[in-house]
């Protein structure tokens, strides 16, 4: 098979992945986005910046993460399943990869304060962690509903010295936290850096966050080459909220024959059920009504409870380079338990979406017997114990 003719390595200069992306923000934020764009290009081309980031990722945050063969589950399913263990990263998820990159960039730009939106709280905890590490004040916007269901992460953020601002508008989840963080940024651009938690937002964020997350895919590709006789897996799968762990994973495999599968939450599936729209500064697939009012998604996994998706995924979907599927809450909870008992790994509800799809795909034949599957386990499940306890 030849390499697919899709080039998502870099968007256009105005931040387009095909028809998606761009920069749909108020005039007050355009110069700030321009400045982030210029600073990121310079930093990413600067070996000193890259080595400082590598140093922190390895010496502090726990890279590289292992690619763990899921021996017992593989045997049960009749496939070879490899888990890319982002759950082992400091703070408990892949979010820290991106945050350390952006926080170093913010520091290089002379900013003294970080703001972020968070859903599950994992990005908030990662940002609070980077703020503490680099001595920057941190404010995290979080929907009131998520504050209630992710109390542990709220307490972690506060322990790390961050301010957590409850958001009471709309569905009181990730979408509203993001809107509120953007409103706040307008008032504070002079000293404040907005640290987006996924491949979302105005250009250059979707591209920049993907670059900071591509370490997942780059590492996994090398590890898979060593672990698999064929060199590359047949299937690469990751969950998709905004799409950062999936985009980072896919980046390592775009030019291989591997099938790329992104798994959305049934109640928040912008790629599977959405239409073209503009939200939070970029054009992509969005869950909305016929007039363009944004829908309120519903997922047991707060990190996937978002009505949009990163523009790069909309582009990959249009070109058929990646396929996007959904699983429901019931399948997800079952997947958490199955993985826990088979492998001794309690993963996050978000990550369990990828596991649930593999479990189903083996029974439907979408994943053939004997196939090799590389799955990014984006985070660990500690934060979700209260949710799971309520269900048992």
């Amino acid at each position, binding site marked *: 098979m030849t390499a697919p003719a899709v080039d998502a390595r870099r968007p256009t200069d105005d931040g387009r992945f095909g028809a998606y992306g761009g920069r749909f923000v*108020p*005039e*007050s*934020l355009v110069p700030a986005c321009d400045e982030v764009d210029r600073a990121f290009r310079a930093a990413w081309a600067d070996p000193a910046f890259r080595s400082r980031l590598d140093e922190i990722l390895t010496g502090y945050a726990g890279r590289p993460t292992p690619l763990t063969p899921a021996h017992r589950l593989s045997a049960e399913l009749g496939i070879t399943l490899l888990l890319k263990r982002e759950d082992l990263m400091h703070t408990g998820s892949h979010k820290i990869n991106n945050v350390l990159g952006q926080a170093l960039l913010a520091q290089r730009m002379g900013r003294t304060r970080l703001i972020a939106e968070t859903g599950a709280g994992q990005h908030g905890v990662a940002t609070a962690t980077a703020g503490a590490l680099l001595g920057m004040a941190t404010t995290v916007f979080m929907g009131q509903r998520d504050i209630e269901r992710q109390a542990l992460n709220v307490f972690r953020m506060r322990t790390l010295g961050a301010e957590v601002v409850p958001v009471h508008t709309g569905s009181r989840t990730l979408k509203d936290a993001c*809107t509120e963080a953007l*409103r706040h940024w*307008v*008032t504070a651009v002079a000293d404040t850096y907005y640290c987006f938690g996924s491949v979302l937002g105005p250009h250059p964020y979707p591209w920049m966050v993907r670059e900071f997350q591509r370490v997942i895919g780059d590492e996994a590709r090398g590890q898979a080459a060593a672990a698999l006789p064929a060199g590359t897996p047949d299937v690469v799968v990751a969950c998709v909220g905004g799409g950062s762990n999936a985009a980072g994973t896919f980046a390592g495999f775009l030019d291989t024959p591997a099938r790329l599968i992104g798994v959305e939450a049934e109640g928040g599936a912008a790629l599977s059920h959405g239409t073209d729209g503009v939200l939070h500064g970029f054009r992509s697939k969005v869950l909305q009504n016929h*007039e*363009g009012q944004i829908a309120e998604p519903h997922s047991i996994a707060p990190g996937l409870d978002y009505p949009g998706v990163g523009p790069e995924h909309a582009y990959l979907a249009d070109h058929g380079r990646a396929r996007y599927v959904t699983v429901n809450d019931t399948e997800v909870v079952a997947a958490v338990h199955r993985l826990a008992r088979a492998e001794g790994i309690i993963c996050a509800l978000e990550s369990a979406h990828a596991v649930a799809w593999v479990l189903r795909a083996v029974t439907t034949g979408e994943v053939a017997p004997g196939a090799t599957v590389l799955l990014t386990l984006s985070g660990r499940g500690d934060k979700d114990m209260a949710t799971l306890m309520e269900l048992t």
Partner: protein
Amino acid sequence: MNPLETHTRRVRDRGRKLLVPYLTGGLGAGWTDHVLAAAEAGADVVEIGLPFSDPMLDGPTIQRASDAALAAGATVDGILADVARIDPGVPMAAMTYANLVFRRGADRFCAALRDAGIAGLIVPDVPVDEVEPLSRAAAAEQLDLVLLVSPATPAERRVEIVKRGSGFVYTVSLMGTTGERPALPESAGALATALKQLTDLPVLLGFGVSSAAAARAAAEHADGVIVGSAVMRKVLAGATPAEAGGFLATLREALDRPDD
């Protein structure tokens, strides 16, 4: 020249300061009575907000107004049908967010505005770099597309914005969302003055113009003011059209008699 800009220039050239109130569309059954009362009270243009579920540039008051209108079942089509039935005697301009425009398609959206008798369009999350398709759609319907200049806008961009915008220049007085403020920052007047040196379009100041005193101060430098949250707070608190119009009349008075 399109009808909105012809009007705003004529008012400005007569030596009258423009008063442009913002009213959220679809808020309550008789909401268009507020538009008529605003015109009666001396508004030169009335801005009609087409509410969006996620208004990124709006502060608490207009967020509340938008949520209330949507909760009451307001739709773009419904608001435009209401608008088509009134004639306030001054031009109306729609203010909304990009997603409502692009969902329908810029061409169809602009055609629907024109059919309803609306003469201008303001979309704060479509900055000048992204404006091309919308500009073309608006021009095809003789709608003026009003662009915003912010205190953060660098000098070269100001030139580009005043060149690409029409109707009037919407000068954002401060780095923030819409909402009432005790007074305008000093820098707002200086920005308006700088813009007037760049363009012959009327230059209006908005965001945080909350009182007669603020309107009078703004008009020392600008060709007029846009007033949103201060009116909408009263409307949300149950002000009748006559009461909200009464408030606007005090602003009219302040703009007409700068020396009082």
